[in-house]
């Protein structure tokens, strides 16, 4: 069984408070299994383990995490798919103009004009490594990386999962590559040792980007904010659906007695 744990972050408020408390909300897909406090920072995800009568695991238990900014572009928009070439196109246009130019003065003027409009050639990717290649506001408009109010539109990023549940071997988290454009190619996932029944804490380290303007230039400084989450692991023993006991019996094929139907 796979638990999907979604974090919604009010990035603007979290930056203003310098704190994630009160600014993170969690939702998962296992309310039916007992997850509680859905939509709140205190949500507890229930993991339902199933074991064979000899104690070995009978089913996999997997956690998946994803974090969204409330003001960020919707996760269903494959922005990297359509928009990734934005800056590359500017750089190509500049290179073509430079190739057609012979006078050093014109070269200097072209570079200055490009810098004025789009930032230094190639600098988009090197000076701001954490920013998306093509920053967009929540309405899809291209935003200059100089715009400090763009901070609210950036998704937070999970950079580590640690804490008690990891140290005690309850969960085994790792960052996985994904062919899914929606998540920019990465997601966090963990398998769960469902023998470790009970309530466990773990910490998500979320990276937010804080823009600061100094001397006309904007610097996007990464800030790591820890956030504590809980899971509750329960376990039940696998039962044969026909016999109601631990072992399989003879299938109730014939005669088709009503009492045998759907036996449990």
């Amino acid at each position, binding site marked *: 069984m796979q638990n999907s744990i979604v974090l919604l972050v009010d990035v603007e408020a979290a930056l203003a408070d310098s704190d994630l408390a009160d600014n993170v909300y969690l939702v998962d897909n296992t*309310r039916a299994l007992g997850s509680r406090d859905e939509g709140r920072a205190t949500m507890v995800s229930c993991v339902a383990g199933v074991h064979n009568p000899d104690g070995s695991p009978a089913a996999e238990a997997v956690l998946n995490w994803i974090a969204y900014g409330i003001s960020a572009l*919707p996760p269903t*928009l494959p922005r990297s798919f359509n928009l990734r070439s934005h800056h590359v196109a500017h750089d190509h246009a500049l290179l073509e103009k430079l190739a057609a130019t012979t006078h050093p003065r014109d070269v200097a003027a072209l570079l200055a004009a490009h810098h004025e409009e789009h930032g230094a050639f190639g600098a988009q990717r090197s000076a701001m490594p954490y920013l998306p290649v093509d920053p967009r506001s929540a*309405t899809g408009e291209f935003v200059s990386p100089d715009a400090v109010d763009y901070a609210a539109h950036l998704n937070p990023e999970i950079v580590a999962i640690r804490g008690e549940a990891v140290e005690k071997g309850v969960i085994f988290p790792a960052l996985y590559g994904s062919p899914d454009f929606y998540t920019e190619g990465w997601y966090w996932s963990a398998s769960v040792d469902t023998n470790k029944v009970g309530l466990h804490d773990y910490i998500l380290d979320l990276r937010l980007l804080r823009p600061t303007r100094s001397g006309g230039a904007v610097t996007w400084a990464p800030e790591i904010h820890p956030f504590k989450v809980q899971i509750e692991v329960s376990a039940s023993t696998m039962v044969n659906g026909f016999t109601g006991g631990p072992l399989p019996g003879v299938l109730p094929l014939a005669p088709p007695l009503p009492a045998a139907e759907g036996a449990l």
Partner: protein
Amino acid sequence: MSQVTIKLMVDVVGALESGSLSGNLFAFDTHRRLGSQGIGTDALHTAVARGTRIMWVIAPLECEAFVSLEDIVIDRAVCEPELNSYPGSSVTYWIGTVKKAAPLTSYDLVFSLGSHGRSMVHPARLALISLGKTSEKGDAQ
């Protein structure tokens, strides 16, 4: 001009299974500190003032599950949301500006869910409330 984003997270499978969005919609906004109430529930009250630009965005709990917001039924004297789509995509959002402040304006959300675009209404549980009238201590939950 202030802007608030209302993100509507829908448990598509839960809604299809129960036939209702009640308990299967989690609504969030960015105005907790300005007095929004019920953030993270299906009864979000968003604190707004005249001139606040509101943006409604959809997020399915599962990326594979389809959901779209087909309509926002609200007193048009207060706000007239418009449907827009992101350039080069079929993903949509709604945007509107608060025309006048009102103590409480509830609105219906009309969704289309799942493989066959099943229509489902979430009636009058979400609302706009007046930013000036709420306590600064407004409880996030």
